[in-house]
């Protein structure tokens, strides 16, 4: 009994000492709540040096946290445990967050650098007049492939090339319901935002016939697998493709002509913020041409920042595969928020498609 009490008090004392040390460390570094912001972003989606630079310039400390899906992010912000000041959701999620009243309007007067953004990325359907969001990166969904490992007959100008018999067991897909069902719809020349159940079913049935060619449906590992020549073809996001191409120069990326997805990740200020001022400062900092250029070179996705392009490697910015012009993006579609019910149906179909055996 005595021992038990002694052990318990020891545990308590140690915990309090640790707690005190953490507190002292935080205050010593200036983490006092008033001059910190919490940034909630996708994994590996910012150049960490920029966070240091921002801290040096403004004296505001940045606490950086990451998520791996829009939905996971939404759940955490809804629960409100942490007071996030900045989040970076995709377009359809912004629509949803707006409806659920989770976002604060952004004061454009506090963002002098907003003028750097290419007007074609402003005032988009999911957030008119950019009332709640500022573009961070954008990109497409397309096909990454090893030209010397696929037959000469196919160039992936259309999605149907994925069904080519020579690609047996050689195609990787990204594990996303909207992406996979989406290219199924695209290959039938339907809209990516299709809500007609008969057409969706048709797309799913078509995807089932792709099963013999599919090697695996994976997440972020897709980059690694393509770099290591594990498969000849992969359907994925442009930024992941760019990353893989930097590592393995024999890879090619293309967006089929029938159309595909055009997506935007955007900075927003959730209602949980405790430091609105600093959040605006952070957004403005990220919009600075040099900062945006450095960030884009690090991350590999396409920046919507027009003024940043001259600061970047010309080879990258003139690459039409990653910086398609307006004419090319006109054929691409942005995801709309289809509502919970429809999203559930997409996922239901995707699950059934995954279960379809060879």
């Amino acid at each position: 009994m005595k021992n038990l009490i002694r052990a318990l008090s020891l545990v308590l004392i140690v915990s309090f000492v640790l707690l005190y040390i953490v507190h002292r460390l935080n205050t010593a570094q200036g983490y006092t709540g008033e001059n910190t912001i919490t940034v909630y972003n996708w994994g590996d989606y910012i150049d960490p040096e920029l966070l240091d630079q921002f801290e040096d310039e403004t004296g505001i400390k940045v606490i950086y946290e990451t998520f791996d899906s829009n939905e996971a992010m939404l759940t955490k912000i809804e629960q409100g445990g942490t007071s996030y000041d900045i989040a970076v959701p995709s377009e359809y999620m912004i629509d949803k967050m707006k409806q659920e009243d989770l976002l604060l309007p952004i004061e454009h007067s506090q963002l002098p650098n907003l003028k750097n953004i290419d007007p074609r990325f402003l005032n988009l359907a999911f957030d008119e007049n950019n009332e709640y969001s500022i573009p961070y990166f954008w990109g497409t969904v397309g096909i990454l492939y090893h030209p010397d490992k696929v037959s000469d007959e196919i160039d992936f100008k259309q999605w149907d090339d994925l069904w080519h018999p020579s690609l047996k067991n050689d195609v990787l897909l990204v594990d996303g319901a909207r992406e996979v069902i989406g290219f199924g719809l695209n290959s039938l020349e339907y809209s990516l935002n299709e809500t007609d159940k008969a057409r969706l079913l048709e797309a799913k049935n078509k995807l089932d016939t792709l099963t013999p060619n599919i090697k695996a449906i994976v997440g972020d590992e897709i980059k690694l697998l393509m770099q290591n020549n594990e498969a000849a073809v992969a359907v994925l996001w442009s930024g992941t493709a760019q990353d893989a191409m930097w590592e393995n120069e024999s890879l090619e990326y293309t967006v089929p002509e029938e159309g595909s997805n055009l997506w935007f990740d955007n900075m927003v200020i959730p209602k949980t913020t405790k430091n609105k001022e600093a959040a605006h400062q952070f957004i403005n900092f990220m919009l600075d041409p040099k900062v945006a250029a450095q960030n884009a070179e690090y991350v590999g996705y396409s920046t919507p920042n027009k003024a940043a392009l001259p600061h970047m490697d010309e080879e990258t910015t003139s690459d039409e595969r990653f910086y398609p012009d307006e004419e090319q993006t006109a054929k691409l579609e942005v995801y709309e928020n289809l509502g919970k019910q429809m999203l559930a149906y997409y996922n239901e179909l995707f699950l059934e498609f995954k279960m379809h055996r060879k």
Partner: protein
Amino acid sequence: MKAKSRNYYLIPYVLWIALFVITPIVLVVYYSFFNIEGEFSLENYQKFFTPVYLKMTLSSFWYAFLITFFTLLIAYPTAYLLTKTKHKQLWLLLIIVPSWINLLLKAYAFIGIFGTYGAANKFLEVMGVGGKQILFTDFSFVFVSVYIFLPFMILPIFNALDELNPSFIDASKDLGASSWRTFSRVVFPLTLDGVKSGCQIVFIPALSLFMLTRLIAGNRVITLGTAIEQHFLVTQDWGMGATIAVFLIIFMVVIMLLTGRRKRGEMR
């Protein structure tokens, strides 16, 4: 006085059980009665009995069975040999050590080993068999799962074997039984409890494996665990996710009852 103070010791235990065992189960059951629109309904239970989820349940059971079977097949002889070795605690430790390494790390290592240009295929080529697709197959899924669960099966069997009174074996041999007969009539029945708890520890988590299904099986194997993950994280259909979880709980209770230890007073 004594009885009273004993009751105080129960407080942490009762609190723990109430907060972390009973509350979550009640919440899971509660959520399972709400459809995606947040209305009270039995829709989710109806949905579970559609071919999609029934097929998923069957395939989960099939893979869990395969995993348990192969784990047992390897674990029993290993545990048996371990009890016969000189430094058995050391050997046992060596088997347990890999289970301290993070599961995710091990899964990623296997992606490298089983890949097209990985060590396993190099070996096959040297042996003259030629390269094969190993990663993203049923084989790799079962193999990696067996590897991960192996220590959990070996431990209870090892303990059961270790506790076995050697005089039973001597008696059996003295009475003229062959080695095989001694094993099948004396050793195995007496260690059955270890086998049962080993099977429980392996079969139940194997039913709801989810990360390996993506990393090692490339989503070609879909288990109930995968579906729960998807419903909670992507679809945000918490009701359906909870319903699947309710069925998993029911399956687990049934399995526990079937393989549960029977009281055998005369044994010790």
